[in-house]
């Protein structure tokens, strides 16, 4: 089928060419000069599915000539044997580059670029002399430096974990909100009221939800030890599944597996505000003594925190959503700001390998600060001494290669 079409196409081209030629012969001044020097290269750092094309503009493609003689370029592609010729893309005048991202790996292609004139007059095509093949790279060389940064950050986390495990440098500063968790669970027990734990609005594909669930495991354990009830409404089925596993494991670890009740960890609805409506209703009716908000929160943060405030609950919040932090800061007793949420589980566990990861994070911040200071000094030098090219080069390498 395709080959028949190709033959028809070829015939059509053969038929139309002479007519065009006659036209141009009749009015030679109207002929459009073709683009030239068409080069094709493999596109770097991909899976072998793209080819870069470059050419020199048609001499008739001049922006100052009005009306414009060349209104664009058209790229054609065929297999090395000339079959399966397809029109790829119409490009605007002045374009000298194009990346064909629809190649099949392993196939050899021929390309043509035609300058398109007004009234559908096309120039002769610029053709490729040799067929070109896309090559597959097994490593994305443009991401080497990024890989190094990933290795440094991960290496620091692992390295410091080992150091702390060996018993050195276990000191970390206190975070007020985390100390308050135990107190809050204790108060709930005294008052005979439940604790509410909200693991946020997002699914298990979000790391802050995972961090929230990790905190839940500690809160649930404290609650189990104090014999306080813990209620975990979720807005994703998968989070409910994970939360049930977590709380059950915490009850087992606290030695009270019989006290675990599945029904307390329930799925409400996926819809943000319906979920919130349920929770505010729950809060004013059941009046939990302690509310924990740990995970990703959006606009509902203030509804939750204000309702919690109006019923006099102790509230501890932690979120990675910078936009919601002001509301938690304004209406909750304690707020874990950004990174502190991810650190919370390590703090609460008190295990050396977890505390080590905190030191690793600190090393990452030190790296960020060092890069930032070095970069700013280079940028300042470049600004002060515009004639000294070494600084500009170093700055360029830092921003465009290392921090690409």
């Amino acid at each position, binding site marked *: 089928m395709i080959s028949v079409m190709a033959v028809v196409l070829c015939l059509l081209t053969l038929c139309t060419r002479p007519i065009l030629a006659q036209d141009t012969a009749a009015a030679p001044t109207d002929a459009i000069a073709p683009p030239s020097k068409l080069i094709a290269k493999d596109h770097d750092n991909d899976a072998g599915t793209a080819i870069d094309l470059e050419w020199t503009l048609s001499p008739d493609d001049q922006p100052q000539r009005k009306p414009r003689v060349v209104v664009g370029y058209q790229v054609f592609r065929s297999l090395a044997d000339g079959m399966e010729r397809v029109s790829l893309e119409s490009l605007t005048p002045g374009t000298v580059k194009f990346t064909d991202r629809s190649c099949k790996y392993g196939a050899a292609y021929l390309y043509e670029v035609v300058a398109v004139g007004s009234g559908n007059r096309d120039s002769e095509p610029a053709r490729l002399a040799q067929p070109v093949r896309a090559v597959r790279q097994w490593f994305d060389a443009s991401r080497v430096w990024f890989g190094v940064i990933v290795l440094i950050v991960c290496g620091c*986390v692992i390295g410091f974990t080992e150091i702390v495990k060996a018993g050195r440098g276990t000191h970390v500063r206190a975070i007020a909100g985390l100390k308050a968790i135990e107190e809050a669970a204790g108060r709930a027990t005294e008052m005979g009221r439940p604790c509410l734990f909200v693991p946020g609005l997002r699914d298990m594909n979000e790391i802050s939800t995972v961090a929230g669930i990790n905190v839940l495991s500690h809160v649930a354990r404290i609650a189990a030890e104090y014999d306080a009830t813990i209620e975990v409404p979720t807005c994703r089925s998968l989070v409910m599944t994970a939360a049930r596993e977590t709380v059950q494991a915490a009850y*087992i670890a606290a030695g009270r597996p019989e006290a675990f009740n599945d*029904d307390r960890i329930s799925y409400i609805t996926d819809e943000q505000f319906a979920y919130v409506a349920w929770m505010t209703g729950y809060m004013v009716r059941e009046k939990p003594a302690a509310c924990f908000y740990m995970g990703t929160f959006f606009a509902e943060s203030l509804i939750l925190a204000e309702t919690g405030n109006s019923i006099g609950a102790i509230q501890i919040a932690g979120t990675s959503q910078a936009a919601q932090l002001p509301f938690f800061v304004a209406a909750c007793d304690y707020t874990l700001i950004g*990174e502190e949420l991810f650190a919370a589980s390590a703090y609460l566990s008190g295990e050396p390998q977890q505390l080590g990861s905190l030191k690793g*994070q600190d090393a990452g911040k030190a790296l960020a600060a060092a890069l930032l200071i070095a970069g700013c000094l280079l940028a300042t030098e470049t600004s002060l001494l515009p004639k000294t090219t070494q600084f500009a080069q170093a700055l360029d390498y830092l921003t465009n290669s290392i921090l690409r």
Partner: protein
Amino acid sequence: MLKSTFPWLIVAVTGCVMIAAFFVPPLAEWKNEAGAWFEILAAMAFVVGGANLFAQHLKKISARRAGWGYSAVTLFSFVVTLVVGLFKVGVIGEDPNYPWAGHYQAEGSALWWLYQFAYQPLIGTMFALLAFYVASAAFRAFRAKNTEATMLLTAAFIVLLGRTYAGTWLTSAVPDDYSALTFPGMTAIILGVFNTAGQRAIMIGIALGVAATSLKVLLGVDRSYLGSDGD
């Protein structure tokens, strides 16, 4: 072994493949495939959530626990929405040969009605409650108790004024050379310098927190979400 250790192996292997996919172009495709799978998994998880919702409310109704009437309302609206949505009640498809091919939410269908006249006003109004809570929080929580609170308060004050006509009007007498001293000008400085610096530091911190937490997940240091080995 199958209950806790094997799942962790799945975590470690899939996670490492995804990291590798970023650096190895031929693997990049896998990232897309895994994403498509997540989509399907999340869709199937709805059944787990829905079944839980159904069971919880049914239990409450049959035990005649306090507020069981509202549970009945929830259950009723849940089942009605589910039925009209799954059976495309009131949907008129373009092609009469394919009555099931119409859009599930075409104008005039039952699901469309529920969306338009129940879902949307309910959600929208719930969200609008925030306007009231913002006002009460402003009154109660924004007090100049210490330096930090004063900073928060002042910044909020300036931006509030700077983002309305009132701010423009109050400082309209300030000459253009000193535009930084107008409320919109100060708002721009707060946003451009202080807010940008704060946001960037928070973002850098969160990125590190995410990286460390992901790493702990991959290494199996913290796997409470997978439960314990005893079922």
